[in-house]
């Protein structure tokens, strides 16, 4: 955990309430101070979803709750939430107030669970960790307290996989990304539990989590504790692909790794890859002349300041498919030390053709990193740069006349609906979005 942060780009553990909002007909119940949900949705929540934002029930801790405890108030709130909110799953998240005071939330909630009500409790005190960590805690709690109680018999279903990719809302494009990954995985013969977003089947789908043949983690580290938990609990093996696959090369690599891991029909997989690559590269081919010929300058160097999953995914994509060379890369998600080596290793192997020494820094104090990027870009005034970052970076992008693609919260300058950057389609979308910004700068 950092000493201090300027320009925070993630939330606290309570921020994982957004993961509940991302579950169909799921509703978070906050046992916290009155401001938590507002602050969270202000950073990572464009749109209310089904029952997020100002719909979220909350005990709104007051002074007397902090002194005398708030268990009774929580009991009342859960009881009334079950009556008022029409949902399939109610997840109680506790904030700093109740955690410091020491409310026994588990015992409050267990009464509802004993009555077969779909209520889950997670200790997400804000000071215990960020929302990357909170996400895994929330998912694991739902598995232990809901799925385990309501599932059918655990029978491995051939070809069924659980997909753990983006942290909903922390990845602004989570819905589009999950949708695309599900689409390509189903195209090679799997049945995918998306679990979050439009392509998921809600709680009925969650109940089949134990039956998966294997789990897929597509991302640097946030979802690994979920896969490990499921491995221990249901002996489900998992494949870890440590970044988001963006564009042709990485998407094909991802599908092949899945195919090997899942012992899928190679012919079917290769046929799909060939078909998709053909389409994908025909588009790339169309744009190659533009990238080589455009005389007024397009970015040749990229500085990323974002989550590990995107920094890695985009670096590989931009270098190998667009010829944009990675400058220093800043990872802001407070990646635990034990996962950092693997990420550095991936950067070492970023090119098949030459040794590249990409400098990588893990630093959640993004305000400091942003200033460094500004210095680095100003040190090379002859090169046009692309910044992959957040709304905070509009300032340095303007100051250095760089192009900015926002891939990390706060996203304020973009309205996100179904956009995603993973897969073949996502790669093309990324190219369009990057050069749309570049060309938009000319008068």
């Amino acid at each position, binding site marked *: 955990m*950092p*000493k*201090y*942060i*300027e*320009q*925070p780009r*993630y*939330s*606290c*553990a309570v921020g994982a309430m957004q993961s509940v909002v991302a579950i169909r007909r799921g509703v978070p119940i906050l046992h916290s*101070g*009155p*401001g*938590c*949900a*507002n*602050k*969270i*949705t*202000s*950073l*990572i929540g464009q749109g*209310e979803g089904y029952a997020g*934002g*100002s*719909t*979220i*029930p*909350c*005990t*709104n*801790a*007051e002074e007397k*709750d*902090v002194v005398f405890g708030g268990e009774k108030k929580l009991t*009342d*709130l859960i009881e*009334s939430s079950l*009556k*008022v*909110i*029409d*949902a399939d799953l109610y997840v109680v998240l506790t904030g*700093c*107030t109740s955690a*410091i005071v020491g409310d026994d939330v588990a015992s409050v909630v267990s009464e509802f669970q004993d009555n077969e009500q779909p209520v889950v409790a997670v200790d997400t*005190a*804000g*000071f*215990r960790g960020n*929302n990357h960590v909170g996400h895994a805690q929330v998912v694991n709690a739902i598995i232990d307290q809901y799925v385990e109680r309501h599932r059918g018999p655990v029978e491995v279903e051939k070809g069924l996989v659980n997909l753990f990719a983006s942290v909903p809302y922390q990845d602004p494009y989570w819905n589009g990304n999950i949708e695309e990954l599900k689409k390509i995985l189903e195209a090679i013969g799997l049945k995918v539990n998306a679990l979050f977003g439009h392509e998921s089947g809600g709680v009925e789908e969650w109940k089949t989590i134990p039956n998966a043949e294997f789990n897929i983690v597509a991302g640097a580290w946030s979802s690994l504790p979920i896969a490990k938990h499921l491995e221990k609990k249901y002996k489900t093996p998992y494949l870890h692909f440590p970044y988001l696959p963006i564009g042709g090369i990485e998407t094909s690599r991802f599908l092949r790794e899945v195919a090997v891991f899942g012992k899928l029909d190679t012919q079917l997989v290769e046929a799909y890859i060939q078909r998709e690559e053909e389409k994908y590269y025909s588009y790339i081919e169309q744009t190659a002349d533009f990238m080589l010929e455009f005389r007024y300058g397009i970015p040749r160097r990229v500085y990323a300041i974002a989550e590990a999953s995107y920094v890695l995914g985009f670096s590989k994509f931009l270098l190998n498919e667009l010829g944009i060379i990675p400058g220093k890369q800043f990872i802001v998600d407070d990646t635990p030390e034990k996962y950092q080596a693997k990420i550095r290793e991936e950067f070492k192997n970023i090119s098949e053709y030459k040794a590249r020494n990409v400098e990588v820094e893990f630093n959640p104090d993004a*305000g*400091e990193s942003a200033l460094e990027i500004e210095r680095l870009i100003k040190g090379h005034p002859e090169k046009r740069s692309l910044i992959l970052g957040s*709304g*905070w970076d509009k*300032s340095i992008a*303007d100051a250095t006349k760089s192009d900015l693609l926002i891939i990390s919260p*706060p996203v*304020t300058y973009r309205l996100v609906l179904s956009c995603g950057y993973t897969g073949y389609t996502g790669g093309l979308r990324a190219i369009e979005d990057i050069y749309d910004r570049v060309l938009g700068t000319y008068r």
Partner: protein
Amino acid sequence: MGTINLKEPSVQIREKRLGTITGYAGGAEELLTQVKGCGIKDSKRKFSQCIGCNAGHAFCQLSLIQDVAIVNHAPVGCAGDFFGFNFVYRVEQVNRNLPPANGRYFSTCIEEKDTVFGAAAKLEETVREAFRRVHPKAIFVTTSCASGIIGEDIESVLDSLEKELEIPVVSCSCEGFRSKTWTTGFDAAYHAVLRKIAKPARKKTNKVLVPNFWGSHVFDNFLKDLGYEAQYIMPFSTIKELEHISEAAATIHICPSLSSYMGAGLEQVYGVPEVQAPPAYGVKGTDIWMRNIGKVLNRVDEVESYIKRRHEQIEPKLAEYRKQFEGKRAYVTAGAAHGHAIIALLSELGFVVEAASIFHHDPVYDNHNPESDALAQVVEEYGDIKKYHVCNKQAFELVNALRRVQPDLLVARHSGMTVWGAKLGIPTLLVGDEQFGIGYRGVLNYASRIEEALDAVEFVTNLSKHSTMPYTKWWLDQQPQAFQGGKKKCQNI
């Protein structure tokens, strides 16, 4: 009872200082009678939704001061609202011809071990780092639930940093659990500035202070004609300007829910007269406000001729709008004083304001002058509002009530509320700029936006056909105030 006490590091919360309530259902007139009879009833709810806390409102007023850094002494999640304000800061710089810059906001990232071993060292380090990076003219430290419960002596930490860094390092006490009335955060910010930044007057100036958000500068010409200069304070102020607010000729309000404490504080501590009439919304309200400011600034005759002139200018257009809107039914949901302002505007334009969901109710402002009561003035000028709910957001009550009332128009004034109008197929309007509706011109401004909202029926009608409803049928069949309980209590204020 005086309400301004600058000796205390923390401002007293509104519930205690003003008897503010956040739960009520009844008529507006009845509420006013209860206040007079000292039997105001605050309700508690067995079901409640996220309110929002006063920390964001304190941050709102402090973070847009031009030359400061803010340290939020809290876990990182509490810093979730940093960027929202930074966005406003940057957008509004353009409107004020200021160079582009990010706001400089820091989180101390309180973690578990700090709740056990203390977070004071962390606070010191963060303040020093903020100073090193930013070289601000002052640093404000906003507190949180976590820092509050840890309960360290922040004052003494900041006092010694102030000596070390030789700039004001000022605490702003805004723990989320302190108050159910989020506007207490405004008071906390003003308290911090009055206590540690403002200095005694060296001379008197012709400036008229306008504590505000980042609204348009509507008072410039009017005050200039009277020989005064408008000075919009807090967002986009500099520390130097705030040091000298005591020298101003008067304070006016765009919304006493915002600046009640500042207005009374400046008058009580530094003798800056406060224009105590409710803000200038609606023709009648503007007349009253104009006459009040005429008295305070000693420009009674000038103001009378101004009123006459402006009436003549707007009357023809106003008559057209009134004809168009006559008898249409409106629902208002907004903060207290600004909500009353919107009710006045709509009534002026011929709407029947059938119901309102107002986020809190201050029975009195810090000046303790009954003539400042914006709701009383609205009821007196335009009649009772039969369904007057006080609910601090609580969308479930709003949705329930909206479905029953089925108004022709919903006017909302906080995010997260408008969507319910649209989902129910009701033309809905949110005007962000508080100053947009002020004065005579403001009535016409609002009318033109209402006309647009009423015109765009296709959008809301089509959206409502495809909308989901997270509330149960059971709830929608209950009365909106079904979860409000609680007892009558006498507020001795």
